[in-house]
């Protein structure tokens, strides 16, 4: 028992549990693509045969394509804006001594925890009081608030992971703050920035709650899906659309996490 490696001994039941956990985590979502290829408008077993028809049908629908364009526009604007602002916030939080930093960070991270419906209706009430009509711009504002905490949380480990003295060296060698940022800080945290862009784009692209309250006449893709859920005959094409969105989201998030992987490693080792 005194052998310290006993902790590393493989634990068979726990391994089985972990495998089941991952299966249960992923399988419900995998039914969406499975039935999207099913040649029946009913979502039930037994499967009726393989078809691409629901996907082809999607391509011909103008509202789907319009919603897709809306979502991409909102997603790009949201990710660029929240990442751009988030860089400075992440740097301030990791580098500088700021009185009341804890409460400030807590405040910034609020959207991660507070129910989305509260922010959604609060923003809706503000906009209607100001007489601002709902549009893709208002959706973008909502998404920036949701995405900023994600952007900052993604980039903080990057700033923690690199040595501040490099920035100081640059300053000592005569660069001003602007060029120090572009020639030293930016390249060092670039993977974090890229990850943040990908992750916030995905969060915005998939976001529904804020969009529900803040969308005007142009729906985003999740809003379009929501509006179609009422019609059973639309189920298969919704499944096809959902499958495409899931594959794209998984790919983007995976890529983002992969780019940023050593930041995670550094952060978990440092703690």
């Amino acid at each position, binding site marked *: *028992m*005194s052998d*310290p490696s006993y902790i*590393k001994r493989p634990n068979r039941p*726990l*391994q089985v*549990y*972990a495998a089941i*956990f*991952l299966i249960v*985590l992923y399988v*419900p*979502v995998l*039914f*969406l693509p499975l039935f999207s290829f099913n040649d029946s408008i009913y*979502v*039930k077993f037994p499967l009726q045969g393989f078809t691409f028809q629901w996907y082809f049908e999607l391509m011909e629908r103008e509202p789907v394509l319009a919603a897709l364009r809306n979502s991409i526009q909102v997603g790009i604007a949201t990710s660029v804006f929240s990442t751009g602002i*988030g860089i400075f*916030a992440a740097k*301030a939080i990791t*580098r*500088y*001594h*700021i*009185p009341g930093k804890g409460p400030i960070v807590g405040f*910034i991270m609020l*959207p*991660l*925890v*507070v*129910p989305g*419906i*509260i*922010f959604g*209706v*609060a*923003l809706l*009430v*503000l906009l209607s009081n100001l007489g601002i009509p709902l549009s893709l711009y208002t959706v973008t504002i909502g998404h*920036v*608030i949701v995405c900023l905490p994600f952007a900052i949380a993604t980039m903080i480990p990057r700033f923690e992971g690199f040595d*501040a003295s490099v920035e*100081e060296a640059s*300053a000592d060698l005569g660069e*001003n*703050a602007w060029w120090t940022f572009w020639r030293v800080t930016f390249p060092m945290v670039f993977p974090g920035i890229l990850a943040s862009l990908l992750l916030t784009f*995905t*969060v915005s692209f998939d976001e*529904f*709650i804020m969009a529900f309250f803040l969308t005007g006449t142009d729906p985003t893709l*999740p809003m379009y*899906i929501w509006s179609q859920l009422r019609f059973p005959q639309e189920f298969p094409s919704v*499944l096809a659309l*959902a499958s495409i969105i*899931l594959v794209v*989201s*998984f790919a983007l998030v*995976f890529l983002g996490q992969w780019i940023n992987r050593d930041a995670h490693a550094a952060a*978990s080792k440092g*703690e």
Partner: protein
Amino acid sequence: MSAPTTHASANAADLPRTGRFGRILQRSETMRGLSLLTPTLVIMTIGILVPFGILITMSFWTQVGFGFDTAITTANYEAAGERPIYGALLKRSLYMSGMATVATVLLSYPMAYFVAFHVHRNKMMWIVLMTLPFWTSYLLRVFSWKVVLGYEGVINSALINLGLIEAPLEFLLYSQSAVVITLAHAWAAFAILPMYVSLEKIDKSLLEAATDLGDGPVARFLRITLPLSLPGVISASLLIFIPTTGDYITPALLGGPDGQMIGNLIQKQFGAINNWPMGATLSIILMLSIGAIALGFMTITNFVRKRIS
């Protein structure tokens, strides 16, 4: 922390290169930090504080036809106290998300434990795998449970095909349990991270010490691992309980009449019912209830932690 100070003084000697504004900024580390934070704080103020202030104000207004009577009154709060439907929905929401929280934490803890203690290679891969679903569309994950639990969904049609049941099991969809299952599944990825982080931080030599002093695996877990991972368990619980209480997508898609939550009612006040002030009141009440419960929970767990450590 002393490093940035030397940075600032190094720059002070270099004044001609920076403008007056830059000099003011560089004089104080705090000022520079705050100026970097300003855009974020401005956005968050416009996006959170101001709307929230107006939401509170509106909760004291009343709806008159299609407009608002902006005279300050507590009528909405009184109505919320008197009409039993509001209290019942709030209680049910707290109960259902409480159940979802307990289920998620209990089911995710072993997983977090496994990755923290038993995965030695490709740890990052496991963490990404566990958290990946969290980043993808919430709406679609909920929708996928509708497909799984539906009246003619995956489970029912599979069981009928296998000849195990004659008619679809109706309790699967449109019930509180459907909502709790879906919530637990949807938030599992979020729950794992804080628990994993606190388990990962545990100094392994403490476990060795406990073993050397004669503790078996169970005693070791109960006396070392569990207490030290409690902070992660607490934050995981709050991270699930708080947002799920206000959820309205899951109950709307899977809850049926018995599974509706307070979020659905709030949403209706801003939609079909069109009584925004009442919706604002209910949002405030929801926030206050969540806040009170979270605070109580943290007080109790803090007390317990002090007792056991």
